[in-house]
């Protein structure tokens, strides 16, 4: 039932996220009744009264700007959803590339199948254990070690390349953001000068188009100001546009990674969580790829240090044992976990240096080979209490879950954008009947889909608990 529960847990997580977005919208709706905001939203226009036989019949008022309010709020909601969809879209693209590195069936990279490599490497000690003096088995151990090291190192290099590539793509967004914020500031200036109290028509359309384009790139908040002006901040609050003035975003390199600034303030972390393409690139760069690299480092460190330690204490085919000055290491001994994967390599060139015998045996012994073979089944603190194979499987599985999760997010967000666009298209007129029909369609769809979901969930839950009630009451 864990899987169904996961789906529901995801649902509740999504609810929280949507609630946050909704709160922002709610604020806008609430602000619509405030004096400052009414200049931007529908106002009331007095109709001419009719006087018949000396008695005037007032025609009341006509709402002239309701479309404007509605469009503004809906468009802002659409922009928010677009930011999320863009972020998950660019992150998903990066994750797909990342996952391909660890998917042997479809992999065209040099990283191969690390899971199989791990098994083959430890299995090679099993054969050596049976015939510790066999040169071919000794060579087979080194060969399996080389394949494992090359694949882990290759995967780490590919991750570093992908990270660098994402870094460049992220940096490239800066100029696009600056062009848009400059344009928005100029449009703001024109709108505030020419139409401080009314809709500025085409100019507002242009400004909205720029804001939508900006939303796809970075997560932003919009703040309506007096005289039809607008300020824009990143979701973390860095000011990008203040009415007629824009603040340029710059980038620079820190510790080999591109960081983003407004003025002298580093806004990278806020941009990462803020949404838009840039948010997606940065999340992939700083979370997904960095996490994958760290896991590979941990794996390489765990395997290298444990195998080296055992080999160093045994006796090789020539009767030697490892010393501080001349250690008997199979792998390049890592000095720290970071960088272990990329630097993983086989340093042993002579197969006779494989210490198959323990220190209490002669050169024909095989206890140490057995111990090294047993490492495949041993859990270790370096690998979070898992065996090397299990650790790698968990890593690949977690990566797959992340991809699946982001895929779901992206699908739902894209669906939401589609729905909103449909609503906006339906509400292009001020006709109340059209609006009611659009709302009815939305409500009917939601109710029917809720019913479908509830029934499917119950059917699936029952099916997964065979023997219990299967039909839904």
């Amino acid at each position: 039932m864990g899987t169904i529960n996961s789906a529901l847990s995801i649902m509740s997580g999504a609810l929280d996220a949507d609630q946050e977005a909704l709160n922002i919208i709610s604020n806008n709706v609430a602000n619509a009744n405030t004096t400052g905001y009414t200049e931007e939203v529908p106002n009331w226009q007095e109709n001419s009264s009719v006087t018949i036989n000396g008695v005037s019949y007032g025609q009341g008022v006509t709402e002239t700007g309701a479309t404007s309010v509605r469009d503004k709020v809906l468009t802002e909601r659409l922009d928010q959803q677009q930011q999320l969809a863009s972020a998950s879209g660019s992150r998903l693209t990066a994750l797909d590339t990342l996952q391909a590195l660890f998917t042997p069936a479809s992999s065209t990279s040099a990283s191969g199948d690390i899971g199989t490599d791990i098994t083959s490497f430890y299995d090679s000690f099993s054969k050596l254990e049976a015939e510790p003096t066999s040169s071919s088995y000794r060579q087979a151990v080194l060969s399996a070690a080389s394949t494992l090291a090359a694949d882990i190192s290759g995967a780490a290099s590919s991750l570093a390349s992908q990270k660098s590539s994402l870094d460049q793509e992220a940096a490239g967004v800066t100029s696009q953001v600056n062009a848009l914020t400059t344009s928005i500031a100029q449009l703001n200036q024109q709108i505030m000068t020419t139409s401080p109290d009314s809709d500025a028509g085409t100019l507002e359309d242009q400004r909205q188009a720029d804001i939508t384009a900006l939303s796809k790139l970075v997560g932003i908040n919009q703040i309506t100001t007096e005289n039809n002006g607008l300020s824009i901040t990143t979701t973390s609050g860095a000011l990008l546009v203040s009415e007629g003035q824009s603040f340029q975003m710059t980038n620079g390199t820190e510790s080999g990674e591109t960081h983003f600034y407004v003025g002298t303030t580093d806004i990278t972390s806020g941009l990462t969580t803020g949404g838009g393409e840039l948010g997606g690139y940065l999340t992939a760069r700083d979370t997904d790829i960095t996490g994958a690299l760290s896991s590979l480092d941990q794996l390489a460190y765990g395997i290298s240090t444990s195998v080296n330690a055992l080999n160093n204490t045994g006796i090789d085919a020539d009767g030697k044992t490892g010393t501080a000055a001349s250690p008997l290491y199979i792998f390049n001994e890592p000095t720290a976990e970071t960088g272990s994967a990329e630097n993983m390599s086989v340093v042993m060139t002579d197969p006779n240096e494989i210490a198959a015998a323990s220190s209490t045996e002669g050169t024909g012994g095989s206890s140490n080979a057995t111990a090294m073979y047993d490492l495949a089944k041993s859990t270790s603190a370096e690998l979070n209490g898992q065996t090397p194979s299990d650790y790698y499987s968990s890593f690949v599985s977690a990566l797959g879950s992340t991809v699946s999760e982001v895929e779901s997010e992206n699908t739902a967000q894209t669906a939401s954008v589609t729905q909103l666009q449909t609503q906006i298209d339906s509400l292009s007129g001020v006709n109340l009947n059209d609006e009611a029909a659009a709302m009815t369609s939305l409500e009917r769809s939601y109710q029917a889909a809720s019913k479908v979901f509830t029934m499917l969930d119950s059917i699936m839950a029952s099916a997964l608990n065979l023997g219990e009630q299967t039909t839904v009451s």
Partner: protein
Amino acid sequence: MACWGMELGSGPAGARGAIALQEPGERWKHPLLITLVTEASRSLACLDAERLEELALSCQALNRDLARADGETRAALAAESREATSDMAVLARVLEATRANLNVMNRLRELRGGRLEYGAQQAPEWPPMESGHGNN
């Protein structure tokens, strides 16, 4: 407007009308769960209320038929359920996004209604009756 996710239902299993294939007298078989789920997500994204209502009926029929399903069918359904789990997560998310959109739309409708009522209280800003605006 081209609707999102058309590809979800574009395959043979997901094609519109592919659900409810059972012929009279044929051994009971139900539509693939994954087909129902992906079709529901696609239809919801497109706000295709009619299709969703059809799917709800399909689910009711599926649930009813399961009461007389044999062990083999139930086992097959369990396997399908596991396969469809990630698509259910997608449907859950689309449903939540729809709920949020619906809330926004409802609040806008309330806002609009409230403004109409609120407008009457703004009478002091209106010109007084018989103020010369009439066409006597």
